[in-house]
């Protein structure tokens, strides 16, 4: 094994002109992914980006790695085949709320269920961009778009709840205005053995501008998001004095120092506790903050590793396959 070279960000920038709209959140995500690649510990030739169709799915063209721009919704299936065939690769799936949750919903949940060691990044801007502004499966009820002039009637998915329900072993959320946070989350996803699912709150400046404004605006963001750290209490707010406490099974926002609330009363984040992860995926309504960071991270054997193990076990038991033996196996007869 040769050593992994020391990469710089520019080593991951392809010669293709980036063609997203000026101001699109995708630029920041691309830059953070390219940064993360320098610290991945993987050789460039062992990295593959696979995308479906949509604005986000142009991504592989801009990465100087191996890449596949595929068809609408199918990236998780294509990436699964690639990873199963060659488990040594670091395989990244780039998708959006339409590509991953609508046309490709079936492939997404099954890739998560099987625990194929893919890193799936879903850009969630709650709108269809490439087809020029129709509501998506994550759009809020009532959203007025070109296909819903009187407001959308569809109830939205919560991507991380869906991922958790599908059996994902790693789920995280990050936001396109925080490059450092994005990079850290992507690296954590890569370090996780098994499937990783990362939702990036991403802004579409043209068709759904400021959709995540509450979580990105300097004035409000500290009070509307909670940054998770494993083993640490869930504290947030401008003054770092707000926290999440359980009232029965229901989380509530409390202020440290008020009504006798102390730090020890707050929920301690535990990435392996299903109930905590599940509660965190649904945060965000009312005064509850949106959870950012790693919501769940548990260790389960990866699918492609199990396939290798099974193949090896059968080979040890039966010996390596031989066509000659196979063709002559079972009942045969001589014609003279």
């Amino acid at each position: 094994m040769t050593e992994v070279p020391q990469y710089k960000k520019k080593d991951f920038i392809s010669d293709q002109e980036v063609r997203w709209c000026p101001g699109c959140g995708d630029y920041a995500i691309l830059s953070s992914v390219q940064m993360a690649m320098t610290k991945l510990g993987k050789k460039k030739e062992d990295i593959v980006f696979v995308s479906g169709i949509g604005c986000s799915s142009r991504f592989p063209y801009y990465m100087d790695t191996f890449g596949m721009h595929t068809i609408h919704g199918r990236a998780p299936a294509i990436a699964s085949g690639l990873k199963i065939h060659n488990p040594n690769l670091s395989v990244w799936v780039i998708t959006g709320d339409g590509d991953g949750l609508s046309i490709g919903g079936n492939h997404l949940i099954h890739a998560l269920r099987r625990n194929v060691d893919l890193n799936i990044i879903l850009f969630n801007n709650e709108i269809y961009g490439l087809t020029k502004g129709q509501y998506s499966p994550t759009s809020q009820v009532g959203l007025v778009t070109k296909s819903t002039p009187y407001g959308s009637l569809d109830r939205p998915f919560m991507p991380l709840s869906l991922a958790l329900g599908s059996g994902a072993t790693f789920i995280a959320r990050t936001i396109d205005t925080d490059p450092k946070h994005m990079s850290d989350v992507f690296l954590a996803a890569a370090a996780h053995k098994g499937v990783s699912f990362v939702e990036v709150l991403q802004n579409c400046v043209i068709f759904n501008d400021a959709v995540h404004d509450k979580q990105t605006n300097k004035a409000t963001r500290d009070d509307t998001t909670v940054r998770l750290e494993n083993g640490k209490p869930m504290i947030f707010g401008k003054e770092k004095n707000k926290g999440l406490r359980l009232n029965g099974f229901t989380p509530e926002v409390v202020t440290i120092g008020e009504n006798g609330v102390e730090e020890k009363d707050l929920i301690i984040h535990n990435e392996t506790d299903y109930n905590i992860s599940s509660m965190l995926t649904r945060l965000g309504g009312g005064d509850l903050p949106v959870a950012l960071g790693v919501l769940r991270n548990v260790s389960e054997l990866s699918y492609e590793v199990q396939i290798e193990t099974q193949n090896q076990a059968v080979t040890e038991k039966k010996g390596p396959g031989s066509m000659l033996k196979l063709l002559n196996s079972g009942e045969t007869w001589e014609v003279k």
Partner: protein
Amino acid sequence: MKELESVVIRFSGDSGDGMQLTGTQFSNTSALMGNDISTFPDFPAEIRAPQGTIAGVSGFQVNIGATHINTPGDEPDVLVAMNPAALKANLAALSKNGTIIANVDAFNELNLKKAGYAANPIGTPELDGHNVIKAHITEQTLKALENSPLDNKEKGRCKNFYALGMTYFMFSRDLEPTIKWINEKFGKKPEVAQANITTLKAGWNYAETIEATVSTYSVAPAKIAPGKYRQINGNISTAWGFLQAAESAGLKLFLGSYPITPATDILHELSKFKNFGVKTFQAEDEIAGICSSIGAAFGGALAITTTSGPGLALKGEAIGLAMMYEVPLVIVDVQRGGPSTGLPTKTEQSDLLQALYGRNGECPIIVVAASRPNDCFHMAYEASRLALEHMTPVLLLTDGYIANGAEPWKIPDVAKEYGKIKTHLVDGKKPLEEPYLAYKRDEGLVRPWAVPGMPGYEHRIGGLEKAQNTGNVSYDPKNHEEMIHIREDKVAKVAENIPLQTLEGDDKGDLLVVSWGGTYGATHMAVNKAREQGKKVSLMHLRYLNPMPRNVPEILGNFKRILVPELNLGQLKSVLNARFQCNAVGYNKVQGLPFKISELVEVINRTLEV
């Protein structure tokens, strides 16, 4: 004792009666005894269709011969009818003077009613001309097993072996292979094994006892080419062909598939070969089946996907992607009766146009078709070879008839007949002197194959139109047109890499019969019969459908008339007429059933008279 050239036997009963097993045992034993055989299982789409009804009838037909056998036979000479529904469903097909072995115990009021008989047909003029053997199969089975520890229900299940025993006596079959098989199959349940063997022998003894009233048939071993033989059905033959291709190409085999009748057995079969390094992936749907294979193909596997008609429809977009990527991929379509869900367990040839044209845009791919069960091995190898040598998807058509049908197969000398396949994989270890051009083509218009893991070869591929050489996205109008032509020409050039078309019969004549796919057995036999009658008829059976062999137009021009029998409404006929303006006429049947030799002989004669 009657000496026969060939005889057709049909075992027929409820789908739970074990008729497929009985038929398979009879076929295997006959093959071992040196007969040529051809089989045709015919079962309902429902796993447990209502008992005793026509819908629930499951049949297995086998043709055994002292001469070459190419089809499971037109009309059964012997029908084993385990209940009234089996008799009703098969009586019309039975040959004149054919023998019926009826399990009279099952001809009770309830079963007769379920089969739609107002009265018991046995002993009535309806069966006149047939030799009816009234056997108390159920009752005799129970009696034979009086001392068995099994309960009555379990004992009843042995009755198919009684029927089998009777046919073994009638055709002088050796009991030993089946006894051996029973002992292996039921090794863990010795009491079941013993009961089945006892019943088998009881059936034999009964038939021997009543010999006075039955002419015993004997079919001598067939005169076939010397060598070592085994029996094989089309689906297993297909699976093994891919194993061989992977070995010949030095690649790992990857199968992404979703279960669908009648293709699923290929997935079952390949999932056994983990010690060959095969990876099988049962995907969440048809689309994921082919998509996972496309991913594996990008990664450097011999990647395949298997399906049947409705699944092929779902895979269309992804086939377009693979064509656009120019990665090697084999898609197997085991055709069944369509459209929509159609007739899942029945055979048809109606996916040809879908295979050739069923995608958006100008999307040429290679299409080949296997002609008989043991040809599936060869054509699976060929499909893989062409995919790898031309960096393109290849569609292999088989059908339910040859997929489930079995015949003897002379075991090939694989080292000689199935040599190395040269792929377009680049030498990934050599450092590149200039940037890698993923779409730089050779004289065959074929691009190189660099896969992840090769340093310096990082590149991106996509479904968007691409520029020559670099593969970068291009919206240039002229470039698009150029690329469309390049992809078309690339597939057309495959004609230089396939064998020339051969003919059965003379090079010139009054009539050329053109067939493709699983109808070969019937067209071959029918043309032979017509030639024996002095007719100037030849057969051109196509296995390469796109592109076709280069000499096809010349052959077409040498005959006064062209007849294309197909199990569809004339799909190949339309293609031939459109491409070669050859005024071909069709003979078409869409009943979910294969052609009979006799009907084709009749059509040939009729066409010659026009």
